[in-house]
């Protein structure tokens, strides 16, 4: 964790989170914040327990494998001791949580026994890069599409756009990516210009993964924007704004869209957490060294600590984001009052 905590960005994020919570505590009273925090602790305990027990139930064959051909009972016992697998389950769970509190996710069964934190540290920046780029382009495509459809609600343009977004949104990435790769292969066999099939780093390599994630994700925001916009456009104050002679554009952007933003914010919050993990297929099909890629590889080699580590990190982020969304929701919507 040193590497992650050493850079400036996470510290800024932490400060923002704390500032938001303090703001919420001032505006909405400490009771609300305390209640949410208590729920947070409970959920985190549940998440760690389920993750732990699944790893506990899995057969410890990786240890045997690591032990190798010249495995002797004392060596095996030693390895089990190193990984703490000889303890009763409650002790193991205690150790698991205790180590988590110190940002220690254990040692990988493979990869030369490196620590999981080290592996995640390498993956998280790449995944965040991919996820944030994908999220931004999804929003840039989805929100205008939603507004466009809402202003033409009921027309053929609207139903067509919504059908397209429904379809692309339903298609999983492990279908769209092979399809893209087929097309790339055709192009490359014909020596036509084409995008690279895999890798990460250069701008050309980023186009395809981000593009595919945009394609499968924008539909959600398009549909969400459309419904909230339709809801807002039916309000009285919109009629007032129109009656007062404002242009259609001003009404849509200044009056309607700004109010439709609130539900969007609540949707984007958890999405930020999920884009990091959600790209398991994208990362493994494109060989992008993010946490999804490492997790997928770890699954195939039954390297439980890495999988557990990824799940715990992502789930924690999701839970934190949900709390954040509630706080931001309270701060954004002035109609919410303290009891």
């Amino acid at each position, binding site marked *: 964790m040193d590497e992650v905590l050493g850079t400036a960005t996470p510290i800024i994020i932490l400060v923002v989170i704390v500032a938001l919570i303090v703001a919420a505590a001032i505006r909405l009273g400490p009771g609300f914040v305390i209640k949410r925090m208590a729920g947070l602790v409970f959920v985190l305990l549940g998440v760690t327990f389920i993750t732990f027990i*699944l790893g506990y139930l899995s057969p410890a064959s990786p240890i045997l494998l690591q032990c190798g051909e010249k495995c002797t009972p004392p060596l095996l016992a030693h390895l089990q001791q190193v990984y703490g697998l000889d303890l009763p389950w409650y002790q193991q769970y205690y150790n698991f949580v205790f180590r988590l509190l110190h940002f220690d996710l254990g040692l990988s069964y493979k990869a030369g026994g490196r620590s999981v934190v080290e592996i995640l540290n390498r993956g998280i920046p790449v995944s965040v890069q991919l996820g944030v780029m994908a999220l931004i382009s999804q929003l840039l495509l989805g929100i205008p599409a939603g507004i466009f459809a809402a202003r033409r609600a009921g027309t053929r343009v609207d139903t067509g756009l919504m059908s397209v977004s429904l379809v692309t949104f339903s298609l*999983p*990435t492990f279908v769209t990516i*092979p399809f893209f790769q087929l097309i790339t*292969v055709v192009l490359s066999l014909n*020596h036509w210009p084409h995008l690279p099939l895999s890798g990460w780093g250069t701008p050309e390599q980023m186009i395809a993964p981000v593009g595919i994630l945009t394609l499968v*994700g924008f539909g959600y925001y398009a549909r969400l924007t459309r419904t909230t916009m339709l809801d807002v456009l039916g309000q009285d104050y919109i009629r007032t704004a129109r009656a007062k002679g404002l242009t259609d554009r001003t009404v849509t952007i200044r009056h309607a869209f700004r109010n439709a933003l609130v539900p969007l914010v609540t949707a984007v919050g*958890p999405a930020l957490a999920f884009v990091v993990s959600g790209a398991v297929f994208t990362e493994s099909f494109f060989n992008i060294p993010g946490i999804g890629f490492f997790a997928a590889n770890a699954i195939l080699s039954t390297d439980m600590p890495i999988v557990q580590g990824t799940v715990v990190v992502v789930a924690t982020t999701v839970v934190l984001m949900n709390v954040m969304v509630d706080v931001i929701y309270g701060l954004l919507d002035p109609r919410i009052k303290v009891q």
Partner: protein
Amino acid sequence: MDIREYGELEEVRQAEGQVGIEPGGLYGGTYGGTYVPATMTPNETLAQEAPTRPEVGTQAREGDDGFTQLAGRSSSPLAAAFRRFLRDWRAVAALAILIVIVAFSFIFPLFYQHMGGRTVGGNLGNRPIGPEQYHQFDFNDLSHPGMNGTIISVTFTPPFVQFHFGGPDAAFHPLGSDSLGRDILARLMAGVSISIELAIVVELFDVGLGLLFGTLAGWYSGWLGFILDRFTDVMFAFPGLLLIILMGATLGPVFDDKFKPIVGPIYSRIFLLVLAIGLLAWPLMMRFVRGSTLQLKEQQYVEAARVSGTPNRKIIMRHVIPNLMNVVIVASTLSVLGTIIGEAGLSALGVGIRPPGSSLGLMISDGLGDLYILPGEVLWPVLVLIIIVVCLSFIGDGVRDAFDPRTKD
């Protein structure tokens, strides 16, 4: 949007049943690579309101379940929804296509078994081969990987993708065979039927548990409701895909050990998938059911039943559950899509169905290695999966609109 009291924000959200459903939203939608929050979308809600009975009018007559209905319109809400569904041509067309595909993959193998070509040479001699053999690795000498003897095969010879029709009759592979010589059509049919079987079983699991615990949590909203609520919180916090992957990876070997001798390698994997996907799916169903139950509890006819001393169990069975059907139908239609995608995804990662079983996802990941040589190996399963997903999402959309109380007749 109404004014929300902050302390009750969570409760209000749940009670209003604002857990908007979008296809793929079931597992936090991590399949598509983006998160679909399992929380609310304000307007696009599930048809949550109890089917409103027509007002008691002057021309009212007794309905069959003790409620009065207007004389002119005696159709049940379910029938009305069905009528609305039939008006949505996209959904109906999608349903028709889906039925054809599913029926084909369940029925055609029976005939296909006897249609198999003959092996030429090899250690099998000159005899017919059935599709059940096409699944076996050790029969790879019965066919010539690629395009020999196919009705349609695909190659990437420049300048374009080429579809070849016909060919020398080495072995009868209508869509070609994969790099191990397994027949693609046979594997596709097996994959689709496994998906459908799995979806049905998961739905039973999902609806059963969701209805049971949802009504309980809604009706007895004391400590039981609290515990179930926290449980769903925990489940929603997981990145859905990662959780089922984790379950597949850890429990897979356990299931293989326990069930392989009893039900064989394919069904031991199906059990695993049912458990993993079902466990992930039902909390969402429960939350929908709970939300509607909370609303139904406030309805006057339920109150009347309670005042007149009807036991709780009877009220739930007679008045609550029948009115939950719309919620259940909409949510389960959408969750079928999630199940099929989930199975394909898990199999594509190598933790779901495994050879000798066949699955669309497995076929895709198998074929990715041979992209340049045997494009058909990826193309066909991708096409079938796209068709199924598109059909199911149109059906889901149609069903949701049909049950939406705001849709006018």
